[in-house]
Structure formats: C-alpha cells, structure tokens
C-alpha cells in the first residue's frame, strides 16, 4: 500500500523538483554571486545584493508595488463581491461563470494591447469624448498608475470572483430568508449575514489577486509605459538591460519572501476558512 502510494507520488515529486525547486535553487545561488563584467555572474560570494534591495531607490519600487497591489485588490473585492453574489443567486450561474472565464481564452498580452488601443490619446475613449466635445484635449488614460491599476483589476478580477462565488454559492439561502424574516433590510442582511459568512472566500480571493499583482510584470510594462515601475519590471530589467543577474535574483527572492510572509500570516489568521 505504502509502496504503491510512493509510486503514484513519483511523477508529481519529479515535476516539483525539476520545475520548481531546482530553478529556485539556481536563483538562490545567483543571488549571492557578484555580477560579471560582461553579464553573467561569478566570484566572490557576497550578500551585498540583498543590502542593495533596501536601497531607497529600490525601496520606493517596493512601496509602489505594495500600494498598487493593495488598491487593485480592494477594487477587485468591491467589484467582485456583488458580481459573485449575483452569479451565486442566479439561475443561469453556469452561463455567467463561463462569461467570467471567457477572457482566459485569449492571450493576456493581446488583451492588454486591446486596452492600449482603448486608452491611448487617439484611442476609442478619447476620440469619442473629443468628437462629442465633452473634452477639448485627450484625457491621460494610458501610461500612468491609473492605467496599471485598471489593467491589474481587469486581469485579476476573475481570481476574486471565483473563490467568492464558491463561498457564496454554498451559503444556505435559508439564512438570508431568516435575516429577512427577522426584520433585516437587504443591505443589513448583506452586511450582518452574507459578508461575515463569506470571509473565507474574501481572504482566498484577496490572496489570489494580491500575490500576482505584487509580482506583475506585463501590465505595468505595457500600460505603465515604463513610468510606473513595479517589482516585476525591476527584476526583468536586471536580467535584461542591466545585465545584473545576481541583483535580479536577490530582488526575486525578497519578493518571494514577502509573498510567503503574506501567505503565512493569512493562513495563520484564517487558516480554517481558507483550507
């Protein structure tokens, strides 16, 4: 029995080691090396890279990634909760769930380019507003924090909606009837009964949005136009233009540590809800 179980676990173990642990180990190794003269890395072994991460220039990027991720997560929650509630109480929930997941059928990259076409100065939104004489010069919709947050909320909203839906769908409708019956108006029922009972879904959804936001690369790169630099862009930059692989590795590891810390705190505080 035990031998059999080990055999069944073997493929998963091999994949985990090859595709997850080994690359992480390589990144760890690079992070303590010194940048080579023409890229690459070499001796001597040092922890200097980790100190550099906390240099004010980079610390600012950390804070910026943090607040953009927090704002995006909260927006996803505010937008996703009513949507998930609506789907969970609808009779055509399968249709709506499929609609929520429909964007995944197209590459995220292409969808971000589509957003650029909508948001740029000569894009659909600005041209419509201009031709309707509502505005006299194009609104700054692209290449700023607004565009990045919009893109993140757009991209990660499904990751908020799905766990919220899963929680809300399990919520006993009799509890809502009971609240209603005991004199609670709809908003009170939402606030006193539905929200407290979906805390697990809220926590799971927030984690699923916050963590990828923190490491986002594509959205800030395309919609931020190089002005809004987040941690993902910093890492990418170190590995390409700056050719400083050891520092890029150190930033990745600090990012990973931050994400793990958030995850650890969340699981410790709301463990039973999440699992």
């Amino acid at each position, binding site marked *: 029995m035990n031998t059999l179980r080990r055999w069944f676990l073997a493929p998963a173990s091999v994949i985990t080691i090859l595709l997850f642990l080994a690359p992480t180990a390589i990144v760890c190794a690079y992070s303590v090396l010194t940048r080579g003269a023409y890229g690459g890395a070499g001796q001597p072994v040092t922890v200097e890279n980790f100190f550099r991460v906390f240099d004010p220039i980079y610390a600012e990027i950390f804070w910026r990634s943090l607040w953009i991720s927090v704002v995006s997560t909260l927006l996803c929650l505010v937008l996703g909760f009513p949507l998930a509630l609506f789907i969970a109480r609808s009779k055509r929930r399968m249709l709506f769930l499929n609609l929520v997941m429909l964007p995944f059928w197209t590459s995220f990259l292409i969808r971000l380019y589509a957003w650029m076409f909508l948001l740029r100065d000569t894009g659909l939104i600005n041209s419509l507003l201009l031709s309707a004489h509502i505005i006299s010069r194009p609104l700054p919709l692209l290449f700023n924090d607004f565009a990045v947050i919009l893109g993140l909320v757009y991209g990660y909203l499904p990751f908020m909606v799905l766990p919220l839906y899963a929680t809300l769908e399990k919520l006993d409708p009799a509890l809502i009837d009971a609240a209603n019956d*005991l004199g609670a108006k709809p908003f009170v029922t939402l606030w006193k009964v539905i929200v407290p009972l979906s805390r697990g879904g809220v926590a799971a959804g927030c984690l699923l949005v916050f963590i990828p936001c923190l490491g986002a690369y594509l959205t800030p790169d395309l919609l931020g136009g190089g002005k809004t630099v987040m941690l993902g862009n910093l890492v990418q930059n170190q590995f390409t233009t700056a050719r400083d692989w050891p520092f890029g590795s150190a930033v990745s590891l600090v990012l990973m540590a931050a994400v793990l810390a958030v995850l650890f705190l969340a699981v410790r505080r709301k463990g039973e809800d999440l699992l």
Partner: protein
Amino acid sequence: MVSEVKTVLELQALTKHYLTHRAVDGISLAVEQGEFFSLLGPSGCGKTTTLRMIAGLETPTSGRIFLSGADVAAKKAYERNVSTVFQNYALFPHLSVAKNVAFGLERRGGFGRAEIAERVDRVLSLVQLGGKQSRMPSELSGGERQRVALARSLVLEPDVLLLDEPLSALDPKLRKQMRVELKSLQRRVGITFLFITHDQEEAMSLSDRIGVMNRGCLEQVGEPAAVYRNPQTRFVAEFLGDVNWIDGVGVRPESITLFRQPAGGASRYVKAVVVRNTCLGNYTNIELQLEGETTCFVQQQGAGTGFAPGDSVYAAWNADDELAVPAEQLASVPA
C-alpha cells in the same frame, strides 16, 4: 362569559402558480388569536409555499393576506410582524446564541443594549436555555438549536409564529418530547402558532384546529377529532389514518370488532377469514380477507387476539363509526 374571538391571520383565495404547476390554488382560511393551527399535508402539497407567502418570502400570484386586519400585500418580509422557525432552524452560524436571539430586536430599533440583553435572557430561560447565551450554534444539540430558533422568533412577539416542520430534523424520541414542550410553550406565551407538518400524529396532538392540504387546495378545516371522525374527502380520511373501504363505506380499523358468531349488538357486519396477526405491543393488527378478495385491517387493543390465521370470523362495527365521505368522492374506491 363570552370570549371575544379575534382573527389574527386571514387568507383570501391565496394562490401561487409556477410555470409548470399550481403550488397553492385558492386557499381561504382564518386563524384566531392565540390558536395553535396546523396545516397538514403530504410533501409538495403547497403548505410550505403558503407559509412562505405569509412570511413575505414568496409573492402570491393572486389572493390576499391579512395580518391583524391589515392587508400585507405591499409589505416586505422584513416589515411583517410574523416570524418563522425554519425547518433546519437557519441559525446564524457566526453568531452566538444570544446574538442570534438579539438579531431581530436589534433590527427593530428602539431597544437599548440592556433591554435587549434582558429580553434575550428572559426568552432563553423560557425555552430552558438559560446560561447558554455565549455558545455558538455548532456547539448545540439538535434540540437546543430548535429552542434557539424558537427563542429568536418568540422574542419578537410576532402576530403569528410560523413553524415549518420544525420537529422533522429531530430524532423520534426528542421529537415527542419537543412536541409536548412546544404545546405548553404556546399556551404560556399565548402567541398564535401556524404549524406546518406532514405528520398527522404531530398535527393531531398539537393543534386546536388543523387544515388538511392536498395538491395546493385546503380540503378540510376543523378540530383534529372532528376531522378524523368526519372527513369530507377520501384524501382526508386516508391521510389522517387507515381506512377500510367496505361496500363503499369507510371504517377505521379500530372501529371494527371481531366475533365468531353474527351477533354482538353491532349494527353492521361482514364475513371474513383471518389472514395474519401482527403484534405491535400495545395493539395488534389483524389482516382479514373479505368475500371478493378484499383485504381489511382491524386494530385491537392488547398483545394477543384469540384469533388464528384461517379462522372464520364476523367483522362488525357501528353505523355511527362509518366515515361519511360523500359518495362522489368514492368513485375510485374498489368495491
């Protein structure tokens, strides 16, 4: 002394049609202040839909509902002074017993924190849950949850307390105990109870009056004994107890006495052969075969009968005990 009878709940031709079927089909009913009224019927007969319309959780297709004389059509569930004890209690799992019970009072407003706490304590001791204020619903037994649900509704002093099969989730022994408690509780608080059940024994033992429902219609309303003895439809006769249909006449098993000779003072009798005895402790069921292959059941007090399978007997009963179901109702009864 003339006691004034006040109607607290009145239904007028209340109807609920869904796309595919008529859940409730024109129910009219008046329930008096302080009455314990049961709606009895099989599952799917429309009794729960009726209750949900009274609570305001479903909108009637047509018909009217009056609560204490006022038409409540325009009132939302949270504006109606009725309260429901749900089938699986629907206690809020994230709130303690005290907070569950306080939920309705807090929504009403006008009560101070101290007054709410005092009322919660009072109603909890009424349902014998004093001292369990800070427990969570998950820490309670089925019977205790049931009491919390009752307390949560009773504390609001509703015009009518609606109970949707509240005992069906309990095990049989506890169910009988809660039945007794429920009845005495209703007498003490004097609140009108509208009780929904599919269990005729439950309805008969608890109620001042019962209304028997079938396929969305209210077939008969009356005191339990009266409905049992004088059912007006075949459905009511058979739902409230066993009936033998002998030559177009309904006779309950306990009304039949067996004799070896055609005598004994009973006004009606038929010849029969004993097929088997089934002893159920305090009474025994005897299965008879009448002429023409008809099977007939007799119920006798006690554990023994003195009749053995194969014995020829006379099954006798009094004409008074025959069920006066109108003849047109019996069209489908096998002769």
